């Protein structure tokens, strides 16, 4: 499995050549609480790195989702429409959100240890 990289807005990516999978981190889902709905883009949409691409609604609040990478959306996890709780139960697996075809360079992102430190600081 490819290494996961993390953004400071609590998304994760895995990269396989030009194919990038995007989700939100376990820390993010635990902070959001039970997810009830996701407002997501359609495949084909072009995203800039750092652009808000959708919204995750939890019981507590609506939060924007940001793409850690620039590129074109090639797939959206359709399971999430019926089972948004996959974000909570399996954020790094079946709870993936988008697949993006990378345009340009992969931006600077945090590795596991760096993100862990960052999330711990954010959690207190």
């Amino acid at each position: 499995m490819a290494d996961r990289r993390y953004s400071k807005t609590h998304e994760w990516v895995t990269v396989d050549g030009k194919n990038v999978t995007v989700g939100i981190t376990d820390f993010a889902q635990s902070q959001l609480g039970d997810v009830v709905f996701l407002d997501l883009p359609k495949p084909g949409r072009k995203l800039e790195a750092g652009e808000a691409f959708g919204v995750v609604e939890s019981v507590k609040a609506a939060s924007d989702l940001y793409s850690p990478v620039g590129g074109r959306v090639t797939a959206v996890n359709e399971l999430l429409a019926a089972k948004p709780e996959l974000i909570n139960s399996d954020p790094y697996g079946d709870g993936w959100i988008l697949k993006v075809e990378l345009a340009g360079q992969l931006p600077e992102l945090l590795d596991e240890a760096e993100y862990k430190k960052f999330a711990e600081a954010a959690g207190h």
Partner: protein
Amino acid sequence: MVDFGGWELPQQYSSIRDEHFAVRKAAGLFDISHMGRFRVSGDGALEYLQGLLTNDLAQIGPGRAQYHLMCNEDGGVLDDLVVYWGEEDFLVVVNASNREKDLAWMLGHAPSGVDIVDRTFELALVALQGPKAEAILPSSGVADIPYFGFRPGEVAGTSALISRTGYTGEDGFEVFVEAAQAGEVWDRLLEAGAADGLLPAGLGARDATRLEAALRLYGNDMDESVNPYEAGLGWTVKLGKGDFVGRQALAAVKESGPKRALIGLTTAPGDIGRHGAVVSSGGRRIGAITSGTHSFFLGHPIALAMVEAASFRVGEPMVVEVRGREARAEVVKLPFYRGSARSAAAAKS
């Protein structure tokens, strides 16, 4: 953990969804020790409370509890609370966020001979709520306690005051114990209910269940700028019982009719109207959402909204602001869900 009126409370123990379903299908256990609790005693205590609160204590008696509002002279709601009429004194349970304000107000209105003592930090309060609460509660004879009745008893070997009240729309009990025993009672209750599906439940499940039952939350659905008739709580105001703080103003509101009304709205899945979201009808802004959440149990979002009174009609389409866009909403009858709580009429007597 979230801050709630200065108390650190868990939003959830496991998952809001699971805890919410447990309360509706089996039972949930809430730690509500943050609620303010005052002991009111003395020869003039009954008369004093009658002159301070909106409901009529003459309709109950020792061993019974009653829901009240405490209003200011203008008829604005200072707090909603429950009065427990004990053998020797009254126990008044108020919202955590209003405890200090309420205590100052109550002391300011108390005549000599009436004693008011804040017992919040000596007593713990846990709520066992759900259709299986009666079967789970390890205490003998609780089946005989009527809705909004209470009595002293023993829970898990500890002296307790056991009250058939709650804030979820379900049958259940609120159990007052000395703070030092709270941990033991909590653990024993969870053990007693484990086989029946009892779960510890946090603020998230408490908010969702109270909202489904259309029970008002002070600070969201009402405050000092709202009168009881606007909040749909006119049934707690007994204008005929004699004078009380706010009576004159409230009689005038009743005479002219309230200008606003608290209504129930539902929206499509995903369109959660949050507190403060604008509500419109026919292109015109008519009010705002006061409480809104996704109801896991009902499968769609629900909301209470304070709107111009004339605009209220069940089935009518409305528009609610959700994430900066307009979402369709429909006016529905309250409550959104009627749980196992014993006859609501008994609570209103």
